[in-house]
């Protein structure tokens, strides 16, 4: 089909009688949905001479601020809630027929969902002029640019926002799976999970499920010619299906109603779309109609997309053909995806010990590397000591390494037997496949590939195990060096204590000696004193004797005198 232009199509349709325009528009646009919406809006504007709504219009307590988007069912506006004094998002529906009551009922049920990953429905009803509306919080965040200018950014859907890497895509689906789980817990089935119905907060890049419980057939014009990525209500010969063909579970295509299991299927399909950049069942740049896609869904699973094997298995489980083979809840799926993101085992790993070991190593990789650097530092600082300890270290290291090598050899043996086992399985399958079909061969190849990947993981693991052992040896050496140093330090302090003791002993001896000499001096002094006393006593005795002699002499003299005097 040659490229169509909105202005030329508009001119052509305006030349037709009014009642014929809608049909001709559908016919000419086919699956070119943006063009259809654009020209439909132009036709409405031409009829009314002015837009249906204008900025500044009041609807009850809301003042319209700007239109965010326009779709088949209605328009979404930012509005200012003059009661709450806050900005909000209003979805205004075009149609004013009674069928919308059921939508509003569902919206009321959906308003009970409490989840960080669901766009909450704050209010639903009709305005005075009969327009049905649903009020939601505005998914906007303010961001500050390089110049310090703050601006509000409004979130867009994952149909236009692409993930920056694989983990981000997986994180988004884990988040919306938690949102869907919250809905299932209050008995609400979304029925139309797909990237276009997931909003992304622009700054925190968190994903939110939008349009909950809104996928009601009354909103969507029946048309087999529309794109398989848009929501539609399709009348097939024996049944009617509602939803988005590319994301529709096989049982829904078969005419069974939507269920929690079909929501889980759609989560898997959404993951597939985000990982590969295009919806399931559509090849790159392929342009086919909805019925073709429905036939493909009915025929078998979509071709796998390039992704790590473990993620492939999660996708396959979510999108299993039979509902009972899928994840039992959206929460279980969210937990598996989170496990993948954080390198923990997933339910789809089938309890493989090898995978678990590989993951354990991957989780600790940073830790091991840090420990290695630390031990290197310790070794460098104690280089001299290491040299002295050289011989002993070598012996210890040798022993440790031998142990590590033995462990590695054991693991390699285990790997070899694993390989033998899986190649045996692969051979069996290949034989079976040769007999059956090309598909069997593919499966065998895939399983051989899986086995190879597991072996690779194992090889990486053994390598890391050896380096870990080396690291343990180094650590042990470092530990011994440390102990040695501590012992030497203790010895030094012991010697120091001895020295101190000796010193004090010496001091004591010196003092004793001085005391002794003082005592000797004292004794000598006392002896001197005693001899002095003796001498003094002798003198006194001599004095006394002399005194006695003197008095005797005096008496003698007196006697002599008396004798002379009377004569």
């Amino acid at each position: 089909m040659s490229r169509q232009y909105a202005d030329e199509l508009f001119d052509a349709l305006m030349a037709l009688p009014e009642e014929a325009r809608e049909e001709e528009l559908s016919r000419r646009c086919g699956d070119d949905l943006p063009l259809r919406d654009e020209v439909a809006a132009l036709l409405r504007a031409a009829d009314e001479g002015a837009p249906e709504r204008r900025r500044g219009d009041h609807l009850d307590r809301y003042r319209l601020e700007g239109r965010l988007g326009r779709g088949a069912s209605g328009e979404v506006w930012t509005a200012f809630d003059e009661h709450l004094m806050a900005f909000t998002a209003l979805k205004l529906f075009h149609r004013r027929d009674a069928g919308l009551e059921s939508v509003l009922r569902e919206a009321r049920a959906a308003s009970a969902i409490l989840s960080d990953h669901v766009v909450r429905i704050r209010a639903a009803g009709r305005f005075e002029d009969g327009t049905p509306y649903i009020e939601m919080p505005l998914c906007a965040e303010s961001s500050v640019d390089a110049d310090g200018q703050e601006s509000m950014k409004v979130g867009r859907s994952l149909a236009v926002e692409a993930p920056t890497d694989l983990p981000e895509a997986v994180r988004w689906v884990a988040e919306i799976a938690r949102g869907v789980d919250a809905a299932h817990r209050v008995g609400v089935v979304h029925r139309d999970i797909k990237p276009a119905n997931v909003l992304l907060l622009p700054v925190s890049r968190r994903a939110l499920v939008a349009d909950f419980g809104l996928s009601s057939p009354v909103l969507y014009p029946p048309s087999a010619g529309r794109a398989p990525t848009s929501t539609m209500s399709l009348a097939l010969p024996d049944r009617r299906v509602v939803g988005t063909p590319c994301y529709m579970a096989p049982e829904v295509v078969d005419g069974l109603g939507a269920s929690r299991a079909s929501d889980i299927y759609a989560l898997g399909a959404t993951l597939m779309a985000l990982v590969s950049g295009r919806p399931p069942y559509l090849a790159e740049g392929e342009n086919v109609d909805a019925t073709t896609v429905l036939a493909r869904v009915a025929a078998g699973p979509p071709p796998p997309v390039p992704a790590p094997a473990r993620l492939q298995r999660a996708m396959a489980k979510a999108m299993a053909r039979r509902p009972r083979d899928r994840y039992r809840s959206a929460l279980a799926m969210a937990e598996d995806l989170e496990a993948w993101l954080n390198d923990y085992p997933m339910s789809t790993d089938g309890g493989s010990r090898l995978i678990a070991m590989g993951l354990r190593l991957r989780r600790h990789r940073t830790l091991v590397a840090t420990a290695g650097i630390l031990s290197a530092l310790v070794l460098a600082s104690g280089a001299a000591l290491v040299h002295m300890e050289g011989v002993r270290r070598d012996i210890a290291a040798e022993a440790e390494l031998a142990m590590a090598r033995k462990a590695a050899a054991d693991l390699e043996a285990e790997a070899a037997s694993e390989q033998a086992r899986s190649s045996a399985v692969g051979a069996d399958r290949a034989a079976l496949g040769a007999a059956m079909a090309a598909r069997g061969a593919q499966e065998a190849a895939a399983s051989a590939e899986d086995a190879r990947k597991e072996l690779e993981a194992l090889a990486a693991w053994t390598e890391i195990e050896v380096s870990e052992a080396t690291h343990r040896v180094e650590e042990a050496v470092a530990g011994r060096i440390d102990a040695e140093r501590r012992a030497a330090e203790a010895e030094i302090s012991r010697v120091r204590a001895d020295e101190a003791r000796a010193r004090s002993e010496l001091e004591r001896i010196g003092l004793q000696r001085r005391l002794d000499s003082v005592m000797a001096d004292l004794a000598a002094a006392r002896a001197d004193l005693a001899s002095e006393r003796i001498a003094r006593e002798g003198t006194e005795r001599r004095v006394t004797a002399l005194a006695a002699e003197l008095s005797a002499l005096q008496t003698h003299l007196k006697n002599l005198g008396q004798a002379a005097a009377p004569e």
Partner: protein
Amino acid sequence: MDADLADIYDELRRTARSLLRRERVDHTMESCDLVHVAWGRLLVGDLSETARQDPRQVLAAAVLHMRRALVDHARRRRAARRPEGRRRVDLLDAPGLFDEDPQVLVDVDRLLDRLAAGDPADRVRHGDRRANVARYALYAGLTEAEIGELLDLPKSTVGNDLRFARAWLAAHLHEVKP
């Protein structure tokens, strides 16, 4: 609209019409208003001769000047008031828009720039021509027949272009700018 601005606008329109009908252009500049000066500049010297030989060129330039003057004026005025109530206004009637809500005139002008630039996302094939036709109606108040004569287009094409421009403007007005 301000009284003097309305007068000026009428005068510009009269001049435009007389140019188109090759009537004698003999204006005396009475006011020193910005728009008059712009107009005056057009009609002196060489341009005055051009006006006699090919009035279309002069008219195109005049429309440009009128547009600039009106939109500038609307920009200055837009903060001053907001519309009360809602009236149906023709989106290709500059004085009416200015009266109703100067901001809308500014928005319409910007949207016509976008239409003329032909953003691939808009999927409009003849945006350039349609925006040009719309500008003659919007700023010079010319009729379909007058625009057809001026641009050498069949009257039916001009009619289609104006109808499309009105619808397109109405459909895209009040969009949140990305």
